[in-house]
């Protein structure tokens, strides 16, 4: 049966070409999912199973856990070691949609799997673990009606601590298929309408003599008649905040403890059982690729200024009023502990109760910042200007924070879409920006015009005490740096709640987007409704997911633009090499062996955080072979760290009468290592 190519219609050709340009996946390869729509968790899992079947030699399915709603959490492993228990290659761990409220992140994870399997060079020398959906129970809400954005899994939980469990959730009163909001005129109301757009609400500005008019509620009725609405919806735990770093106990939706649900507990077990994991990616609503992880949290201990509690000062011979550095304290403690007991930073910190690191380490921000610049350049080159709202900062108890602070691994994350920024009519093109300040030296800052500094402070909403004069003096006196100012401004921006008097910029962006791009489908106009207990109310407001989930037609182009960057970052995984070896005979069969090792990549191993928490596995140089004896140095030497693009030298003294072949192995579970052999001739 001859199929004439000429019989293909022009339309088919057109769409084929369009598809080719839209996708970066190799032409001719069928993708496992159709990236023009969003897929339910079981469809996502089925797509992985299809891939594993199609690429059976290099892929494998792991059933990680079952959610309370009996949905599977599935990991797809890709690489050349899928059938080995002993992993010698480093691995990358990718999770998506940990909170279950970012549908595009699950699509992105599967897209990544498709991309990797399209070219074996993408998994040459490393293993991928990809879990597209970390919270399938919550993820299902996007596909159910009425549509509601809720991050809780299906575990029954009494959120409001009354006599019922899960008794008061949402109700689609006007039957429009969405859970929006209700506004009611109420003497205790604090909201007023925004003059320029009465669909929007803002808090009344009492300082200007305004009085609040409306109370805002989530759409629903008071099912349990306790005066509160939607205070105990169905479910559960938000898996995405159920991880140990900065986990908050006693919240309504955070879970009883970190790892209290199988989705998070079994995930932590899996990651721990795979020490070859060298790097993690979290696909969701944060973006460490674009915006380096934020600091500014209180509570981080300065290891150079530690105060020793009174009850230990006598024991150490220390001064309770003085501050000591960690190394000083280690020296003080050494003489009084039993011999053989090893004093490390960790031991001292534990004994003194110093507490955890809560801000990213300075040295790690170096590579985060560098990659962020490169990413912005990459996006610009692809014609994608970043004019969207900022990605969210990482939440306390999130997976990405656990990965960085507890595992000490290079941790990256990506969000794929937020609402486009509303372009302000007045453009201050040459105004100071936070980014500029971060790179400025003190001298450069002091050389700026005072007006510029004032304008900047006003724009970032600095508190009234921070006048330009004061800030300039602080920099002059060395008490402040421009980078620190920018950091504080960023922190304030994150903490900003909608001010009285101003509408929430996010809401403004939402209605603008809804009106201009999706035909008004992102915002429901307020309409009257007769509420059983509240009387006459208006129902309306943003449609759930409008703020973080783009129309399905945009999925493919967004993913084809951004997902490949993950491969760029992975290329920068630490790569260990034996740079040079030198064997110098000393006479009488004694040799001096020098070995230089280097990290060919920009990312240090371990990260500065990994060095601090001692969690990443050690890097070793192992000497082995017959017929030689070490006179000085050890067979197994631990390398504390190899900073990016740096090398270190190690020396041994050995003796070999007959001559020998020495194997020098440089290895660690989560990086590519190296091996060299050296021949020693016999000595006299």
């Amino acid at each position, binding site marked *: 049966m001859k199929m004439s190519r000429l019989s293909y219609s022009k339309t088919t050709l057109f769409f084929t070409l369009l598809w080719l340009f839209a996708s970066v996946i190799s032409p001719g390869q069928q993708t496992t999912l159709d990236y023009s729509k969003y897929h339910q968790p079981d469809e996502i899992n089925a797509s992985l199973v299809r891939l594993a079947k199609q690429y059976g030699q290099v892929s494998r399915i792991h059933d990680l856990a079952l959610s309370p709603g009996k949905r599977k959490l599935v990991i797809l492993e890709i690489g050349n070691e899928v059938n080995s228990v002993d992993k010698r290659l480093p691995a990358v761990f990718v999770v998506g949609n940990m909170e279950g409220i970012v549908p595009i992140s699950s699509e992105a994870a599967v897209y990544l799997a498709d991309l990797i399997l399209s070219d074996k060079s993408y998994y040459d020398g490393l293993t991928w673990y990809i879990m597209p959906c970390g919270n399938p129970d919550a993820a299902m809400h996007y596909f159910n009606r009425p549509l509601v954005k809720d991050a809780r899994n299906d575990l029954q939980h009494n959120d409001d601590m009354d006599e019922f469990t899960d008794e008061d959730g949402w109700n689609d009163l006007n039957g429009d298929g969405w859970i929006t909001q209700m506004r009611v005129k109420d003497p205790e109301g604090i909201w007023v309408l925004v003059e320029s757009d009465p669909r929007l609400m803002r808090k009344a500005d009492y300082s200007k003599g305004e009085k609040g008019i409306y109370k805002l509620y989530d759409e629903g009725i008071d099912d349990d*008649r306790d005066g509160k609405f939607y205070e105990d919806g169905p479910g559960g735990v938000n898996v995405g905040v159920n991880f140990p770093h900065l986990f908050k106990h006693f919240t309504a939706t955070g879970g009883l403890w*970190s790892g209290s649900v199988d989705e998070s507990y079994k995930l932590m*077990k899996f990651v721990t059982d795979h020490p070859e994991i060298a790097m993690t990616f979290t696909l969701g609503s944060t973006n460490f690729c674009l915006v380096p992880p934020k600091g500014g949290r209180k509570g981080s201990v300065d290891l150079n200024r530690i105060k020793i509690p009174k009850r230990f000062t006598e024991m150490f011979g220390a001064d309770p009023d003085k501050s000591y550095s960690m190394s000083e304290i280690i020296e003080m403690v050494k003489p009084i502990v*039993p011999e*053989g007991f090893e004093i490390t930073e*960790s*031991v001292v910190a534990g004994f003194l109760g110093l507490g955890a690191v809560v801000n990213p380490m300075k040295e790690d921000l170096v590579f985060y910042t560098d990659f962020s610049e490169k990413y912005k350049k990459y996006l610009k080159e692809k014609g994608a200007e970043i004019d969207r709202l900022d990605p969210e900062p990482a939440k306390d108890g999130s997976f990405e924070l656990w990965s960085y602070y507890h595992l000490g691994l290079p941790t990256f994350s990506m969000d794929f879409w937020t609402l486009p920024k509303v372009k302000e009519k007045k453009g201050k093109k040459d105004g100071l920006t936070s980014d500029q300040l971060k790179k400025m030296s003190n001298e450069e800052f002091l050389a700026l015009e005072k007006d510029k500094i004032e304008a900047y402070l006003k724009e970032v909403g600095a508190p009234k005490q921070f006048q330009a004069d004061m800030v300039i003096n602080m920099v002059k006196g060395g008490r402040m740096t421009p980078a620190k100012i920018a950091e504080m401004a960023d922190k304030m921006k994150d903490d900003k709640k909608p001010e009285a008097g101003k509408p929430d910029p996010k809401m403004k962006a939402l209605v603008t987007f809804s009106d201009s791009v999706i035909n008004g489908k992102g915002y429901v106009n307020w309409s009257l409704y007769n509420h059983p207990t509240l009387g006459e109310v208006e129902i309306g407001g943003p449609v759930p997911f409008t703020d973080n989930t783009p129309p399905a037609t945009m999925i493919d182009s967004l993913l084809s633009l951004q997902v490949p960057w993950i491969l760029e970052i992975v290329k920068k995984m630490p790569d260990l090499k034996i740079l040079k070896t030198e064997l110098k005979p000393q006479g009488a069969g004694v040799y001096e062996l020098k070995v230089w090792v280097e990290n060919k990549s920009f990312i240090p191993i371990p990260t500065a955080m990994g060095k601090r928490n*001692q969690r990443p596995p050690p890097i*070793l140089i192992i000497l082995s072979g017959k017929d030689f004896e070490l006179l000085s140095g050890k067979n197994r030497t631990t390398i504390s760290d190899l900073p990016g693009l740096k090398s270190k030298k190690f020396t041994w003294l050995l003796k070999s009468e007959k001559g020998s072949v020495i194997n020098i192995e440089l290895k660690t579970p989560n990086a590519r290592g190296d091996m060299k052999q050296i021949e020693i001739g016999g000595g006299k």
Partner: protein
Amino acid sequence: MKKSLKNIAIITVILLLSVNGYSQLDDIKVPLRFDHYYTYDQVVQALKVLHKAYPDLTKLEVVGKSEENREIYALTINNPKTGDELGKPGVYVDGNIHGNELQASEVCLYFLNTLLTKYGNNEKITKLVDKNAYYVIPVVNVDGRYHFYADANTSSSNRGLRRPKDDDRDGLFDEDFPDDLDGDGNICRMRKKDPFGQYKTDPEDPRLMIRVKPGEKGEWTMLGQEGIDNDGDGRVNEDSEGYVDPNRNWSFNWAPQYVQGGAGDYPLSGVGLKGIADFIMQKPNIIIGYAFHNSGGMFLRGPGTKSQGKLHPKDIEVMDWLGENNEKIVPGYRYLVSWKDLYSTYGDFGDFLDNVVGAYTYIGELFMSSSETYRDPEKKTEEEDDMFRGSSNERNREKLKYNDHVAMGELYKEWKEYDHPTYGKIEIGGWVKMSSRLPHPFMLLDLVHRNASAVIFSAEQTPEVEMEVFEIKKIDKTLSRVRIRLVNDKAMPSMSYHSIQKNAYPKDILKLSGQGIKVISGGQLTDNYRDKVNYKEYKPEVQFCQVPGFGKVEYQFLVSGKGNLVIEYESRKAGKIKKQVKL
């Protein structure tokens, strides 16, 4: 011929076992004996015989398995005739979470033995068993206990979980355990004759060594723990089991390894502990907990870290009252605050039970080595065994005399020569593993009895709520005013103040219902002379309350209608009450 050889073999084994103070397996029967320590298998056997002897009062379950697949048992005592276990206050007792802290399990067994054997003969104990539900896990760290006996140890080793960890960061896991060079079942100390050594023989007791003074000629160098450098890295015994400390692996206020040594990789990574946690979460009625350890002679209360802030003052009142009574029951033991008087601990069991379950928990550090005396009764000594600084020379001499004359020499091993592969001619000797933190068996009965009595004292103070409808006043034809009093004459409130503050779980419920009856309004009556009521805005027929320890709480309702008014009180930890009154 064969048969008599076999008999000889059996008798030999039995004799050998009894020399070490072990009882034979088939010797374990009810009532249990407390003149010896129980191995892991013997604890299991003891639980089984207790359950077999009292099948109606007990339930024996395996709550989980350890890393090495050993079973962790829990024995529950409840009298079904006085109600379902979950409808009563829960008393939780465990021990031996640290594998070397043996006597904790004996305390648990004694507690169980007392409650069961005295039931029906002793009025106080009978009432006590009828009143509460008891959950006892005598051995939490089953692998630890097993290996403490089976392998050579010091009195402090084999504390952790059998979770491999590369402690010395050489890429190998648990590769350098202590070595029992002389095969005596103990890990003692090694010393070598050395004129440059920092120690010299104590002139009073040649077994001891004292530090030389500046300029003085030395005699001995201390080489550390008995062992060899198994992995050739220059260090001896630096990477034994774990190190994961099971009492830092719990999930409340857990902190990673570098902040809290021994924390493990993530909360409840210990598989046995996870099983125990799941079991405990099935018993939300637990209101008092005791977790036994050694040593030091203390009853510790939380919080585990300073960062958690102070406990609620009313909870402190409860803990103080019980704790101070414990000091009277076990003389010499001190009631202390964990983080303040000892040190900070993240992820410990006490914090878990207090916060997640809402209980009042004591950590019992059993045994004071200062009770090992040999001294003139007139002479007062200041010498103490300090946990951090160790014992003085005076004290060490005294302890050796105690060993010689009171403990039949069974606690200390004389220095004996040994040919060490690295160090050459050395001597091995020192305190054996069944010493130091563990009392000689002759002291065991006193220890277990007194500490079990402390638990019993607390168990008597679990909340007992009585309901009294102390007023029904007719306001008009159909409206009545009903006043209800809930009284608790025990020390523990029906819900800890900490749990209320943190909204940890729903409060007690006082509910009114009835055919043809409507509750118009209701609230807590704060002053019944002046009719002051804190009215609840919605659903007045359902009130959320707590009954204080040694106290009462009163509620007032305005009810319309006639007929049977049903009043129900339901508490997670203080049971249920149902009453009916006619309006």
